[in-house]
């Protein structure tokens, strides 16, 4: 089956005064219909840059972006003009960000911001748009949607603002939704509400979801396929069940062990030594080798290729576990 999104060899470089920052180095990504793909990594690993490049939101220049293939629903959108991209964004492909307060316009009622989606993409009248908005707000479980549509973002709580963004993102039943850390800024009880809503909306609209997050527990409960990123490269790709049962890359193993769990009984926490390399000053060979307990001489010299290591699995390591 043709994937909704097919990305091959994405490279993004930012020239800065520190030198070239290679934020993304050759990322391949496939997202199939109705699938939830998670992109996991720590801050600075290039996961947000990857997701924004898919929407073509990274301006180039200043950034240098190269991509071999960027196909959305079988169409090559690499050379789309800004106007063509505007047509797709919001209608076929939409995005929600971590911080709902800064993604909403503070001087416009939330209702009008959602109305815009319908007016722009479905060509309906203002009145019709408002009806659709009220329906959408009701669907995401906002109490009294008609009155709420007239509130400004600051009058809503963090959870509600994130719901409004969800309503906006799903307004035109997009084929692909990119959610960049959708629940990081929320409290745990609200996080559970938003995640379950996100999942219901996703199955309801038949949308494919790219979930960008650093939180492995969110990944475990939402994703079908997981890509783990480290320092601009994909280090492991696997179906979610396989990844959590038998992680193969030492980084993935470390990351999982480092998450404290409720079932733990020990007081000592497992830690990955060292820190993430600075993006302008990456080590030679495998980027993870200075922190890796299995590293050999070969790891310090060569970057391992991303090799197949089972059904639908790939790992970038000379000594996979």
């Amino acid at each position, binding site marked *: 089956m043709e994937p909704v999104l097919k990305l091959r060899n994405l490279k993004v470089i930012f020239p800065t005064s520190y030198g070239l920052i290679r934020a993304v180095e050759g990322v391949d990504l496939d997202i199939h219909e109705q699938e939830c793909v998670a992109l996991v990594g720590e801050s600075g690993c290039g996961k947000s840059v990857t997701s924004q490049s898919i929407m073509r939101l990274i301006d180039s220049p200043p950034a240098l972006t190269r991509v071999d293939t960027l196909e959305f629903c079988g169409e090559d959108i690499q050379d789309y003009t800004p106007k063509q991209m505007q047509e797709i964004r919001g209608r076929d492909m939409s995005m929600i960000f971590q911080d709902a307060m800064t993604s909403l316009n503070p001087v416009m009622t939330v209702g009008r911001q959602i109305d815009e989606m319908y007016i722009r993409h479905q060509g309906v009248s203002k009145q019709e748009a408002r009806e659709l908005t009220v329906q959408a707000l009701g669907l995401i479980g906002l109490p009294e949607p008609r009155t709420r549509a007239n509130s400004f973002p600051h009058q809503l709580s963090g959870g509600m603002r994130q719901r409004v963004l969800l309503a906006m993102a799903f307004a035109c039943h997009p084929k692909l939704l990119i959610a960049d850390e959708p629940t990081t800024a929320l409290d745990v009880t609200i996080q559970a509400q938003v995640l379950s809503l996100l999942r219901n909306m996703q199955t309801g609209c038949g949308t494919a979801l790219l979930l960008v997050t650093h939180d492995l527990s969110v990944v*475990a409960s939402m994703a079908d396929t997981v890509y783990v990123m480290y320092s601009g490269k994909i280090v492991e790709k696997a179906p979610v069940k396989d990844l959590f049962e038998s992680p193969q890359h030492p980084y993935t193993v470390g990351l999982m062990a480092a998450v404290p769990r409720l079932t733990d009984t020990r007081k000592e926490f497992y830690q990955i030594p060292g820190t993430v390399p600075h993006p302008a000053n990456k080590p030679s060979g495998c980027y993870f080798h200075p922190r890796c307990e299995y590293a050999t001489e070969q790891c310090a010299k060569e970057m391992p290729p991303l090799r197949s290591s089972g059904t639908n699995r790939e790992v970038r390591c000379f000594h996979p576990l």
Partner: protein
Amino acid sequence: MNPILTMQNVSVNFPVKGGLPFLKKRFVQAVSDVSLTINQGETFGVVGESGCGKTTLGNAMIGMVKPTSGEVIFQGKNLYTLPKEEFKATRRQMQMIFQDPYSSLNPRFNVYQIISEPMFIRGEDDEETMKARVVELLELVGLSSDDLYRYPSDFSGGQRQRLGIARSIILNPSFLVCDEPVSALDVSIHAQILNLLNEIQAQMNLTYVFISHNLADVKNMCDRLAVMYLGKIMESGSSEKIFRNPLHPYTQALLAVVLDTVVGKEREFVILKGDIPSPINPPMGCRFWQRCPKAMEGCKTVPPEHLEVEEDHFVACHLVNGFPDVELPTNYDQLVG
């Protein structure tokens, strides 16, 4: 058990800015009627969602916010009635680690200045002594003496948090409030800082108050804990007992929404309805009743008492404690409006 700090019926109210001069002044009840005991040498956890008053509680413990009412007794002395000089001497025993390592370090100070500042304030003026002490601490927290003249912007988040820790222990405190020390850090750094905190605690025989919203961290770090909601303690006591047998519906809900990294089982989120109410007009009765899946009629009007249900396990819930022998107001609807 040797208590180091006791809080008795502590409340902290903040006046709400704005409003008209002839209107009644409104208050945010950040902490209301909290009583707890922290023992020497333990790690005491404070868990809750944002806005529940956990940071204010931490500030009240070390004398940074004066409680509106109630007493804070540290090592047998009532903090807020001490004469100024004695307060300063006592205050030296209590330090704090802040949540955000980016805004809690002065960007124009170098590492030496940042870490030695508490010594300097306390009247130390010998450069050599200070320098030696700073280097010793830098090594303790995993940095080196080469870093002495670098600036905070040269360090990563985890390293900055290490600087913050070094600064907080330079005066050899006995009591340290860690206010969300790892929530701004990446997963792989997270564990490093928690381990460092544990090491330092063992070396210096410190008492920690560990404020966090992450139940898994709290479970692994703390000996005793308090679960807060809207300024009140819902459940408190031994960490092991609370995690084995959570009695308050809020604690149960919090535990249920902690996502685990286990795939396979089809997850059903136990979801609390609604949002946290505003602390300006907290609900009367139990603060949690509007979101509580097991709320009863009486919960709306009668605030539950914080009672001991087993040794070192306190719960404030009518479901567990039963209703006290009081007349329930019959004009509830009028009271609420």
